[in-house]
């Protein structure tokens, strides 16, 4: 007699394939089935008309509001003002300067983000130290044969980027000093840093901007007047450095105490210890936190419209007031929201990726 294994039966038809997936993920139990139906109904009744309004019923080409006849979104409005959304009131003949500054920025960021590019340290240093100077002369001009473009003409997405990048780059060194000061043994240094950090973290950015625009001119001798943009930048930098200091302190505290002690045992001085031993390790841990503060700052730059600067949201807001295009504010808000969303979402994805990639188990809680 010969014994033979029966061939395995295929799984029941309702456990595999599309039906199986549906049963497992959407309809596994009465509560879940009801939830699926409710959420599904809501999504369909909301998303379908929205998508239709945005893509199918919309108008894309034309040069006045007469082109918007189909009843959907009027993207003609955005297309006509795209230059303003990107460059504000920057003179059109000089747009190339903004473009070059932007391309260098994006290029070096891509260089830094890609996993296998050489000389990351050099590029990062150049970006943090040399690039701001180059970008300043490119955007402001008044040197090297470039005409001067007053800052009140700056605007749109380029102004948003200027505010965010300057805010983060300028607040980094200040934040490092504050974080080190907060961990110092010297009581006066420590309390000065703690007070500084807690004051700025405790107040809303908008009051800081008010302060920068109303109080700052009072602080300086008569005749010494500041540009409005510069005042906003000072406010943003002071505010941001407090948050940066807390991120850096988190990184410093995550370094095991043995590292500090080993550096002391080797006879390294304070700055040697910090620059050679602690900071290189801590910086790695801090990058996700820095990216997260950058995202918060990037969103917060929209507040400058309250003190009269024309960032991309303010440009949209101004465009909505244009009598020729009244009634299309939803389109401009959606467009500006999409711009912000793309930047913030990609940065937050990158920071999540970093958190995973950098998790080499060297932290305190390894």
């Amino acid at each position, binding site marked *: 007699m010969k014994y033979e294994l029966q061939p395995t039966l295929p799984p029941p038809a309702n456990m595999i394939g599309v039906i199986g997936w549906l049963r497992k993920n959407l309809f596994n139990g009465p509560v879940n089935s009801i939830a699926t139906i409710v959420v599904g109904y809501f999504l369909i009744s909301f998303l379908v008309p929205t998508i239709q309004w945005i893509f199918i019923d919309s108008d894309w080409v034309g040069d006045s509001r007469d082109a918007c006849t189909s009843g959907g979104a009027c993207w003609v409005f955005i297309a006509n003002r795209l230059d303003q959304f990107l460059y504000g009131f920057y003179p059109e003949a000089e747009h190339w300067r903004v473009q070059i500054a932007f391309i260098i920025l994006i290029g070096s960021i891509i260089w830094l983000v890609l996993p296998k590019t050489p000389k990351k340290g050099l590029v990062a240093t150049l970006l943090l130290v040399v690039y701001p100077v180059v970008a300043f002369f490119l955007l402001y001009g008044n040197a090297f044969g470039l005409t001067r473009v007053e800052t009140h003409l700056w605007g749109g997405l380029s102004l948003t980027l200027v505010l965010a990048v300057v805010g983060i780059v300028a607040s980094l060194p200040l934040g490092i000093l504050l974080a080190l000061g907060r961990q110092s043994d010297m009581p006066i240094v420590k309390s000065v840093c703690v007070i500084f950090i807690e004051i700025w973290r405790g107040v*809303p950015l908008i009051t800081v901007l008010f302060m920068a625009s109303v109080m700052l001119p009072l602080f300086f001798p008569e005749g010494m007047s500041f540009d409005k943009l510069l005042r906003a930048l000072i406010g943003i930098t002071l505010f941001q450095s407090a948050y940066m200091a807390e991120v850096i302190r988190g990184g410093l505290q995550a370094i095991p105490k043995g590292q500090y002690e080993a550096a002391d045992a080797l006879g390294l001085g304070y700055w040697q210890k910090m620059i050679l031993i602690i900071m290189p390790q801590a910086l790695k841990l801090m990058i996700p936190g820095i990216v997260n503060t950058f995202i918060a700052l990037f969103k917060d730059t929209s507040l400058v419209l309250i003190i009269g600067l024309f960032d991309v949201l303010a440009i949209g807001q101004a465009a909505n007031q244009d009598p020729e295009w009244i009634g299309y504010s939803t389109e401009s808000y959606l467009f500006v929201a999409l711009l912000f969303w793309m930047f913030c979402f990609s940065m937050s994805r990158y920071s999540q990726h970093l958190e995973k990639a950098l998790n080499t188990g060297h932290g305190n809680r390894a």
Partner: protein
Amino acid sequence: MSSDISNSGHKPDGSAKQKAPPVSQPKFWNDPKKRSLLFQVLLLSILGFVFYTIIDNTLTNLEQRGITTGFDFLSREAGFGIAMSLIDYTEASSYGMTFIVGLLNTILIAVLGIIAATILGFILGVARLSDNWLVAKFSALYIEVFRNIPLLLQIFFWYYAVLRTLPQPRQSIEFFGSFINNRGFIFPAPVPEAGFGWVTFGFFAAIVASWLIARWARKRQELTGQQFPVALTTIGLIIGVPLVLFLFSGMPLGLDHPELKGFNFKGGITVIPELIALWLALSIYTAAFIAETVRAGILAVSHGQTEAATALGMSKAKTLRLIVIPQALRVVIPPLTSQYLNLTKNSSLATAIGYPDLVNVFAGTTLNQTGQAIEVISMTMAVYLALSLMTSFFMNWYNARIQLSER
């Protein structure tokens, strides 16, 4: 005896009493104590100089502009109206009153926003961990969309693109005696009549009773291990007692119905559209962050805890209530408080759409009318600073209280 430690020829003399070795004095900048003293004195003097210059410049500048410093302006008559006030305020009120009105409006929007954001955030946070694919993805979509768009933009959207495009008062949308139009949301105002005091009394009596029951139930559980449904009794008492009293005292509550008179409504309670827009935007935006906090908290409870509870024979609901939530809360509450603080600070964006909060009324109109920039901005900042310090004290106290006592 040589004092040079590096001298290898030196033989330690155990019996000899160690005397303070006559070390060659280090240069004073190599002595950590003296150096740190020097640093701190330097820092203090620089700070002192900076502050002195700032104050000196400010006083000169103020003098030149003819602005007198001091807080006398607070008692002067304000002379401007405020769109919404929780207390009696007229144009004849003082600048000090504008501060109070603004502060109360800030507190109102903060409380309303915190309640809505917490409810929405908890639902979304739990939904994101649901095993229902559609629900989890929907929650993830919501979170990723709303937390990556600036709050100010969301406020503008709700205010200018949604609420301001609603119909005029004459074409209001009507339901259950309430109206929605571009002037806001108008609903009947409850008017307490004689005998309503009993209902109020019943409400407070129910709170006291619930507190006593909770105390008794805890004691009994500690002694005997028997549990008592405290949450259910509390809800029952707080809703039931006032309701019964309300019915028995002949429903002493009238309604003041809003009526269209001329171009606007008279009577009832009007919620201005600025408040609605700000409330929607703040709660929707903050809920996305709270949802992430809640999710992290639930994930932080290790799976072994749930499994152990199942092994002990606890039901799913009981596991959630007694095992998962208490441990998750330990992780959730500190970031949650800081989200509440963020919401309160973000409510200052009200000024962009003209909701009369502290920044709009006090740091806006009052500042412009009086020119007392220093005093006004410092008072405004002090309010927010006090709030944030109180929050961090609470957080420290809470953290210390719930700290796991590890063995």
